[in-house]
């Protein structure tokens, strides 16, 4: 054995062929093949229930599977014994915020525990711990118990604990789920740096399609099968197309014309976006403009499609629901008169304050939402969004301040408000042990609907949510997407004037998410329902007519999505995307040479630039001097996530400066 050191083109770290796993009657994974090479960051992307966790657990040797071949680090995993042999060489971080950590132990104690469990020598432990804590900027909080950390910090600690024994392979199951966009970016940056430094291989899963660019290669999973795999740009090339977006009046007429012609049409706030299977952008734009003849069209634009568009197009090709007709199947008759006047205010928050003991969760929050508008409330975990919603829905009382919801005073007419609003929370908040019909009837009764009204609304909900055939199914056994639609239906049973949606799409697959947004859009445009929504998906913020960004209990920005982007472009410049073969080295060079805002984004670097052409030339010079090749430097439109991260980072910096002053 010892002499057969023929240099092969290094064997894959992970090899999976024909992997199947069933839980009882449910087939969770139906045949997955993949190979992961040394040093790769490989992504498994797919919604809840796509089979990501099953595959990862099997690879880590903690879950048995039905059929297929699984090889990890050259070891075939076919028994508990074989799995045991490689466990020392890999690290696993399971799904859930800090679920593998001990809440009562401090950061330091958690790390020490995992290191000693893995028999890391004390001297090495001290060095590694110091370096990892510095890199993750957790060293200031060494002695803080894990339960007091924010979501992002918990995930960073989880990462340290699964890397402390310097494994050859790390398996991270949805490390960024439930983490806000700023912490998410931070996490990816740290992960990329750590892996490069130690030459590790990583298999990472995520439910966010827009994180695909973080990986070298990915597999898109859907319902236990691989939909596509390869480099992100290869996958995009599978369905060449263009995303055309425009504003048109009347919006509903434009929407129905587009829907008649294209399968992937989306109304996002005042905007409509259409996925056209035509790679040539001007041609695609022309095609859409032709189809819209006779309507007033503004700000038409053609850009490269997102991975989500491709994902849905792929699903559509497979015939699994991508082209599903959304919402109330019948097309609306465009009765513009039915739309309520925009000058009626549905929600008015005036200097709302809420204290919990000495902690001020919400600080002088004011905003106004006209009737029929989709209003988005954004912010990191703990920014105060949920507390604002709780005050507006009457669950808790404001400490000071006032407000009106659906025409009733918050302080005096709480009961009237409750009768006029609907609410749907992030977790499925209906009764899982009741059937679909029983749930609907329960809420109809709670809102005091008569028997005839109940019958009529039940029919409407079943149709709106596509629940026909599921009437007597226990809601626990419904798929996630359908469950959320049922929850939405129950929240609408009494025809509320204002609808509150607290992260309505978390855990829902892209198709289900689009369908939900379509329903929300119709409610707002056709029935004049006012909608206040919070979301963690920054791409979804674009569905809103208006946004308020919260930070540390305050509203720090209040504008439409396009205005927000414009403001950032005016303040900080346009987004410049740099492509280079050595992104991490390039980042180092840029940070040291006057581009402090640069950040690694997958294989590319993003930075904001007031003068893209001049900056591109300067960057080219810097990188050439450092011996790094620059493949391209092109301006890209800002995404809502860029806006969010820019705003929050600036505010965090300001807060740190203020804190610094206080301690001085």
């Amino acid at each position: 054995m010892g002499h057969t050191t023929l240099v092969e083109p290094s064997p894959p770290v992970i090899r999976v062929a024909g992997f199947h796993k069933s839980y009882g009657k449910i087939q969770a994974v139906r045949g997955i093949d993949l190979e992961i090479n040394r040093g790769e960051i490989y992504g498994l992307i797919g919604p809840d229930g796509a089979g990501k966790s099953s595959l990862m657990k099997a690879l880590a040797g903690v879950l048995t599977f039905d059929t297929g071949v699984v090889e990890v680090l050259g070891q075939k995993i076919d028994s508990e014994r074989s799995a045991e042999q490689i466990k020392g060489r890999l690290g696993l971080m399971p799904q859930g915020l800090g679920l593998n950590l001990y809440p009562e132990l401090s950061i330091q104690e958690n790390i020490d525990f995992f290191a000693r469990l893995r028999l890391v020598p004390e001297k090495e432990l001290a060095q590694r711990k110091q370096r990892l804590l510095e890199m993750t900027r957790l060293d200031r909080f060494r002695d803080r118990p894990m339960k007091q950390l924010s979501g992002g910090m918990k995930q960073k600690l989880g990462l340290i604990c699964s890397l402390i024994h310097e494994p050859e392979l790390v398996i991270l199951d949805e490390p960024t789920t439930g983490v806000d966009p700023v912490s998410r970016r931070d996490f990816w940056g740290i992960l990329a740096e750590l892996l490069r430094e130690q030459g590790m291989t990583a298999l990472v899963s995520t439910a966010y399609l827009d994180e695909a660019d973080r990986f070298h290669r990915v597999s898109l999973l859907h319902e236990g099968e691989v939909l596509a795999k390869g480099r992100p740009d290869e996958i995009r090339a599978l369905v060449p197309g263009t995303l055309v977006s425009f504003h048109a009046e009347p919006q509903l007429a434009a929407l129905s014309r587009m829907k008649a012609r294209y399968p992937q049409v989306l109304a996002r706030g005042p905007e409509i976006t259409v996925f056209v299977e035509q790679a040539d952008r001007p041609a695609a734009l022309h095609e859409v403009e032709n189809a819209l003849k006779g309507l007033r069209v503004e700000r038409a634009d053609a850009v490269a499609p997102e991975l989500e568009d491709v994902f849905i197009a792929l699903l559509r090709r497979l015939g699994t629901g991508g082209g599903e007709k959304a919402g109330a199947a019948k097309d609306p008759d465009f009765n513009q008169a039915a739309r309520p006047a925009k000058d009626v205010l549905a929600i008015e928050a005036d200097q709302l304050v809420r204290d919990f003991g000495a902690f001020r969760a919400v600080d002088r929050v004011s905003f106004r939402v006209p009737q029929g508008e989709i209003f988005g409330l954004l912010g990191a975990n703990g920014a105060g969004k949920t507390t604002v919603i709780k005050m507006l829905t009457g669950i808790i009382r404001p400490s000071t301040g006032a407000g009106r919801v659906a025409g009733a005073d918050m302080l005096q007419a709480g009961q009237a408000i409750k009768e006029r609003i609907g609410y749907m929370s992030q977790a499925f908040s209906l009764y899982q042990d009741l059937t679909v019909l029983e749930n609907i009837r329960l809420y109809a009764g709670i809102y005091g609907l008569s028997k005839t009204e109940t019958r009529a609304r039940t029919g409407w909900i079943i149709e709106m949510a596509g629940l026909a055939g599921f009437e007597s199914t226990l809601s626990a056994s419904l798929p996630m997407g359908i469950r959320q639609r049922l929850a939405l239906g129950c929240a609408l049973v009494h025809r509320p004037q204002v609808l509150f949606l607290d992260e309505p799409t978390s855990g829902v697959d892209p198709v289900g998410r689009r369908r939900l947004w379509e329903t929300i859009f119709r409610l707002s445009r056709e029935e004049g329902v006012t909608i206040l929504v919070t979301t963690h998906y920054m791409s979804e913020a674009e569905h809103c007519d208006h946004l308020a960004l919260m930070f540390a209990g305050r509203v720090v920005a209040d504008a439409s999505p396009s205005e927000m982007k414009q403001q950032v472009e005016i303040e900080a410049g346009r987004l410049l995307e740099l492509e280079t073969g050595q992104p991490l080295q390039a980042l180092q060079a840029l940070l040291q040479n006057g581009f402090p805002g640069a950040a690694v984004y997958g294989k590319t670097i993003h930075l904001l630039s007031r003068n893209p052409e001049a900056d591109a030339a300067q960057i080219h010079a810097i990188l050439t001097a450092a011996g790094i090749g620059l493949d391209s430097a092109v301006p890209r439109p800002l995404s809502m996530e860029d806006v969010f991260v820019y705003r929050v980072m600036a505010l965090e910096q300001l807060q740190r400066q203020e804190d610094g002053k206080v301690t001085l």
Partner: protein
Amino acid sequence: MNGEQPNRPFVARAAVWYRRMQVMTVKEFLQLFRDTVVLGFMVYVFTMDVYLAGSGVSLELKNATTVVHDADQSASSRELMYRFRPPYFKLDGEIAHLEQGVRLLDQGEEMLALYIPPHFQEDLRNGKPTAVQLQVDSTNSVLGLLAAGYGARIVGQFGLEAALLRLGVAGDGQENLPIIQDDHRAWFNPNQNDAWFMSISELLTDITLFAIFLPGAAMVREKERGTVEQLLVSPLSPFQIMFPKILAMTAVILVGTALSLFAVLEGVFHVPLQGSLTLFFAVTTLYVFTTAGLGMFIATLARNMAQVGMLTVLIFLPMIFLSGAWTPPEAMTYWMRGLMYISPLHYFLDASFGILLKGAGLKNLWDSILAIVLIGSINFGLGMWRFRRQFQ
């Protein structure tokens, strides 16, 4: 949009109020009937557990294992020895040394060791005082006491007979001697059947357990699954959320009680249900309903099912201990007796034993029932107050 006018007529408002209560109660029943684990647990407790308590737990002395060290080996010593017989005692034979007896007691293999000294018969005949020794394992103090007492009676009787024999008044002459005849008559439970007392008291204990646990569990389940938020943003008042739960749980507990009463108490143990069953169920309803307040109180403190379980035990154990199910109040130290008077189970036991075994009616039990109402109202009020307050 729904036409919810603030000044709707009273009748319409009442109709909506009634409909809300109705759908919420129906919901509770549906959820409970789909929870097979809790249902199975209830059926077990109301049948098997009551049965086991009635047939298994006994405070009577039965078959106490006894060994004898007979150093005399005479007719008298043998006669004394064989008076230790079933159903109270069971002779396990003789041992050679006294130390062996001590060892057997230490190892827990025997409960009693009787030591009969040498010259036992001779001394009795000669009228010389003599003594036997009975060593008793009193780990279980009740049984130890009973064994020692019965043993003393056997030896005493034997000694008396030996003395009379010596006086020459054997047989018929006894009747002329000044001996007090001790006869007693047991009321309410003429055969002094332990099963009656134990099964009834177990049933009442189980009722208490569920009266606390079920509403608490139902409420915390809503917290755990996040459904409570949906209820809070709806126009339901805290009362409309809480009351249907208690209503449904009370109904289910009453069904369990009936099952236990007719199938186990009457069916298996033949307890003569003396009093008015209507009165018994009325008192039980009142008791369960008000004790549920404690469950609601727990639900406001607990964050998950495990905590509900722990807190239930925390409240439930002292309640049983202070109820008088094990020890009558008169036997407790005076401050504990004070605590007993605030345990609602104490009055519930009083009333239930009164109705079921003594056939007592309202005339005799009004004070216990009044106490259940008073303490129950406080518990219910406490639960309601905490429940409302947690949402402020």
